[in-house]
Every structure is written in structure tokens, then in C-alpha cells.
């Protein structure tokens, strides 16, 4: 099939939306953190622990949404660890973030080995199934691409809307954006910079864990080591690509996922089979770097990103 033809099939866009969902969830999480002035490099590890926690909860007998909630809570716990070290103590966000990623990843693998000592292949769960939204799913093309997804995907889209509304239309959102731009002004208003930043990192980390949980609970139905495979780092690039705005980040994630879905299909064509498959697998990472190069000049970085705030120094 011709590449152009592929782009006009609804099933292609349905796949793109499915691939985009974990990125959308985790990108929203990272965006909230960075809007409050904290770079959260714990994202990769928090996605791993979220993928495991949600799946393990469902495997042990909870409902699917309860599993999502478990992932969210575990993610928040790691967010609490990250923000305690980076916000009141003002430690290097780079080092702490990487430390949280290493800790969350190794803790997940340890827990996995303890919980399932003798398995060669991980057990499967009854994952989220596609749900066709009445009426909307009957719309030609768009219905199949957008409204025949799993409920977890619909949740991700609603989350983007919620993040945008809270960030731009509520006092809480104003406070979050303000601590990322000018924390001293916020402190002068009598608000606690520490509390707002910590809250943003904790909630943001919860959404990152949900992004991981989508992988084991909707995209697949099982947990594998290495299954997050750099998606967290790609989300950090997507935040930059989206200029720290929820809507643009959503578009970035879908665009990115469309490229990913496209490379999978091109791999299966006659020309694609001639090219080493590793070239295709490299594409997402190369695209992310290119996106960073293109966008970093004109991106509106939150002014206080990575700048710790200590009342001691004025």
C-alpha cells in the first residue's frame, strides 16, 4: 500500500491515538511539574512503577479503574520523594530525577521478582477493551479513529482538557504558573511556594504513573521489563515541543504517535522490508531530538524552571 493511502485510513489514526495515549498522560504530568518550575527526570522510572503497580493490582483482584488509582497513588508517592528533595531542600533536579528513575525502576524489578518468583512469562490480565461511544462512533472515519478506543484513552483526552482549564482558568492554576515564572512574587502574596511546587510535582508524578499503567492495562495486558523503553524521555521532549502548553503538547504527542504508527506500517511494505528494522525503531528518538532542535529557540521556557527557591536568599 502507498504511504499516502495509509494516512487516509481510519485504522491508521486509531493506532496513532492508541500509541499517543501513554505519551499524552505522562506528558501532562511532566508539563504540570515544569510549569511549577520543577524538571522531573523521575518520569521514566515513575512510568515503569506505574505500569507494574496498576497491572499487579488488577492481577491481585481489583477492578481496572481501581488499578489505575493504585498506579496514580504509587506515582504520587515517588512524586513526594522527588519534590521533598528538590523543593524544600533545593537539590539538583537532574541528579534527584535520575536517582528517582533508578530507584523506581529497580524497586519495580525487585517487587516483580518477589511477587512472581518462578514465572518465565508474566501472567495476563483482562485489560481495558475498546468501547464504541454511542452516536459518535457512527461518524465516518472520525468515529473509528477517535471514538472506538478504550475508556482509558478517553480519560487521557479529558485529562488534557482538565489540565488546560485548571492551569488557565482557576486561581490554583495561576498559582502553579506563577511559581514557575516568578516565585518571589508568589511568596510576597503570602502563598507558600514550597507547597504549590510540591503539590504540582506530586500530582504530575501520579499522571506519569498512569501513562505507564496504560501500557500494561490497555495497550498490552501484561508487564515486561524494558516496556517503557525511553517513552519518559520522549515525553520530556514533547513538553518542550508543545511550548509548555497542554493543547500543543497533545497535538505533539499525536503527531509523534502518527509517525510511530507510520513507521510500523512502512516496515511491513516491500521497500520497508529491505531496510534494517533498527532504522525504524530509531525514528522516535531521532524525531524527538529534531523536535527539540527546531523548538528550543522559540520555546517560552518557564522563567524559574530548575531554579530552587529559598527564602533565606533574597
Amino acid at each position, binding site marked *: 500500500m502507498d504511504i499516502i493511502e495509509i494516512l487516509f485510513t481510519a485504522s491508521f489514526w486509531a493506532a496513532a491515538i492508541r500509541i499517543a495515549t501513554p505519551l499524552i498522560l505522562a506528558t501532562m504530568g511532566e508539563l504540570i511539574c515544569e510549569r511549577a518550575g520543577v524538571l522531573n527526570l523521575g518520569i521514566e522510572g515513575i512510568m515503569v512503577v506505574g505500569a507494574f503497580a496498576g497491572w499487579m493490582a488488577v492481577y491481585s483482584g481489583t477492578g481496572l479503574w481501581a488499578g489505575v488509582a493504585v498506579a496514580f497513588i504509587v506515582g504520587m508517592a515517588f512524586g513526594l520523594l522527588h519534590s521533598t528533595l528538590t523543593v524544600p531542600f533545593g537539590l539538583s533536579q537532574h*541528579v534527584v530525577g535520575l*536517582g528517582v528513575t533508578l530507584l523506581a525502576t529497580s524497586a519495580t*524489578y525487585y517487587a516483580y521478582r518477589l511477587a512472581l518468583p518462578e514465572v518465565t512469562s508474566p501472567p495476563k490480565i483482562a485489560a481495558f477493551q475498546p468501547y464504541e461511544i454511542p452516536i459518535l462512533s457512527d461518524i465516518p472515519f472520525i468515529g473509528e479513529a477517535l471514538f472506538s478506543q478504550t475508556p482509558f484513552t478517553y480519560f487521557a483526552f479529558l485529562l488534557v482538557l482538565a489540565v488546560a482549564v485548571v492551569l488557565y482558568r482557576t486561581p490554583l492554576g495561576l498559582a502553579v504558573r506563577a511559581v514557575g515564572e516568578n516565585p518571589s512574587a508568589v511568596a510576597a502574596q503570602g502563598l507558600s511556594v514550597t507547597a504549590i511546587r510540591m503539590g504540582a510535582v506530586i500530582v504530575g508524578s501520579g499522571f506519569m504513573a498512569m501513562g505507564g499503567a496504560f501500557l500494561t492495562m490497555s495497550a498490552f495486558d501484561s508487564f515486561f521489563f524494558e516496556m517503557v523503553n525511553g517513552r519518559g524521555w520522549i515525553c520530556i521532549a514533547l513538553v518542550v515541543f508543545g511550548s509548555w502548553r497542554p493543547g500543543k503538547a497533545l497535538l505533539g504527542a499525536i503527531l509523534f504517535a502518527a509517525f510511530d504508527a507510520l513507521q510500523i506500517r512502512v516496515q511491513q511494505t516491500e521497500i520497508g522490508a529491505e531496510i534494517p528494522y533498527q532504522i525504524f525503531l530509531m525514528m522516535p528518538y531521532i524525531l524527538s*531530538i529534531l523536535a527539540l532542535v527546531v523548538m528550543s529557540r522559540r520555546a517560552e521556557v518557564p522563567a524559574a524552571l530548575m531554579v530552587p527557591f*529559598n527564602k533565606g536568599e533574597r
Partner: protein
Amino acid sequence: MNLRKNKRVTMRLEPIENPTMLRRLGLPAAVLAATFLVASLLAMIAGANPFSVFGLIIKGAFGSKFAVLETLNRATPLIFTGLAVAVAFRAKFWNIGAEAQLYAGALVTVVLGTGLLPWPAFAILPALFVCAILAGAIVLLVPALLKTRFGVDEVVTTLLFNFIFLLFISMLLEGPLKDPMGMGWPKSARLIPEARLPRIVDGLRLHWGFALALISAGLVWIIQTRSTLGYEMRAVGLNKEAAAFAGIPVNRVLVKTALLSGGLAALAGFSEVAGLKGSLTLDLSPGFGYTGIIVAMLALLNPLGVVVAALFVAGIFVGADSMSRAADVPTYLADIMLASALLMMVLAIMLTRFRVVRG
């Protein structure tokens, strides 16, 4: 959520002029103790006796001649990647891509070391050594230039490069570099004998890579404490604006730092291939690049401290491997111990220079 500060207990940080010896040594010691406390809890969760787990780890790492040699061998690549990270982080250049640079060094070693160089035997190892350094330096040069030219954050680019480079190696190992004798495994041909690093003492399984690592640590220490570049790197790391104001060419210093850092990380790949494995496979490095970050931070970014930290970290890994076989505790215990040690160490470093006060 109550965001008003009136009724809450608040804290701030107050600098300490001259930290006491107790503070400077006591805090890292507390980190060490806390690391073992974490490990005890984990061992108990796994249903094992913490003391027997520690016993097994220490015995596995240092309990016999074989164990000690294994630990030294495991420490070798960690010294190189630890130095690479220490050099870069000192200048606040966040090289998280030591994994990619390691594979770059390993790649050049197998490409040139399998009989491609028509040179006399004595020249082959030095040539491989130099070419490996260059390969690692070039791999890190790309993110460095993206940072200095376009302002692209190097954290994400170096991280993404790790994935790209590993796929590149995988492509080569299934294509042009594939060993025809490899029985279908993605594995390169073996190095010619002239390209192998000899053992330091005959009969003992420890190769010259370890000695090269120690020498590198000494050289990096000299560069950092006795050279203009070392001074400039520290100045850029402390305060970029102030360094630029003082006339230091910040971007050029960052690029030089990147070249040095990338070269050091590549030596880990060179020494693993030429000293230990003899060929290149996709599992050459079980995350030596990432573990280098832990090594560097535990060493407080001091090049000589890197050697000590690498021995400690290697000991934990080697010990945990043999402990895991004897007791029913997953080997990932070691990774959790080290990740929590890393986090506690950054906190401890800060608390040596600041005290927490109310208000």
C-alpha cells in the same frame, strides 16, 4: 489545600561558614549506614535474614581471591564511566549518555581490532586506545554542539542518544559486523590476539584495563586541580554568568569538557572489549553508563574518590549476584541500595553546607 503560610511550620536553609569535621565525615557515614538499613528492610520483605544477606554480599564481593578479582574487573568500566560523569557534572554539563559513548569505544575497538589495521603488533593497542577515545568524544560532541549552538538541553539529547546508539550497534551486529562463526547470534568477530589487553599478572584474571583506569583517575585529578582547563570547568559549573563575565569562553570550555567526558566513557567500552570479552555483543554493558552517575555522585565528583566509589559499587553488584544465588533474594537489591544511596548522598552533601532552620 491551605496555601497560606501563617499556621504552618516552615523551613529554610541557612549556609554554614565552616562545616565541622564531624559534619563533613559524619553525614556520608550516616548515608552508608542508612543504605544498609534500606537493604535490611528489603531483605526482610523477601523473608531473609538481613545479617546473612550482608554476610553473603561481603563474602561474594571480597571473600576469596576469585571474588576480589571479579570485583576489580567489574569496577574497571565503572571507574571510566564514573570519571566521565564526574568531569561533566563538575562543569554542570549533564552527560547522561555515557552508555552510548561506551558502545562507541567498544565499536571502534572491534572494527579496528579484528585485523583491519595492517600495523606491527606493538602499535595496535595504542591505536585502538586513541581511536576509542576519539569515537566517544565525537559521539558526545553532537549533544554538546546542539547545546552551545541551539540551546538544546543536553540531558534529553544524551539520554535519547543511548537508545539510538544501542539500536545502531544492534543493526551492525546483525549486519556487517556479524560474526559468520557466531552460530546466528548477534555477536562480532573476536579481536586478534595483538589487540587484546594483557593480564597484569600471569594467571590472575585481571587485565591492564584496571591499571589504565587508575592512571586515568590520576590524570583527571591533575587536570581538575592543576590545569587552567580544570579551573575553567569548575568556574563554569559554579556560575556560568560569572565565568563569562570573568572572560572564560564558556561554550568552548563546555565543548572541551564534553570531549574529555566522552573519551573517558569510551575507554570503558575499549577496556571491556579488549581486556575482558574479546568481542562485542549487545549486553556488553549492563548499564555501566547509568551506574557511572551513582559512582560519580558517591565520590562527590572527586576523580580519586571515583576509584573508591567504583570499588564499593562493584563490590555490591558482584556480592549481590552471588548472594542472590545462595539466598532467595532478587539481585535487584543491589540496584535499590545504590539508587537510595545516591539520593541520600546528594542530600548529605547539601546538609554539610547548609543547616535547616525554622521560619
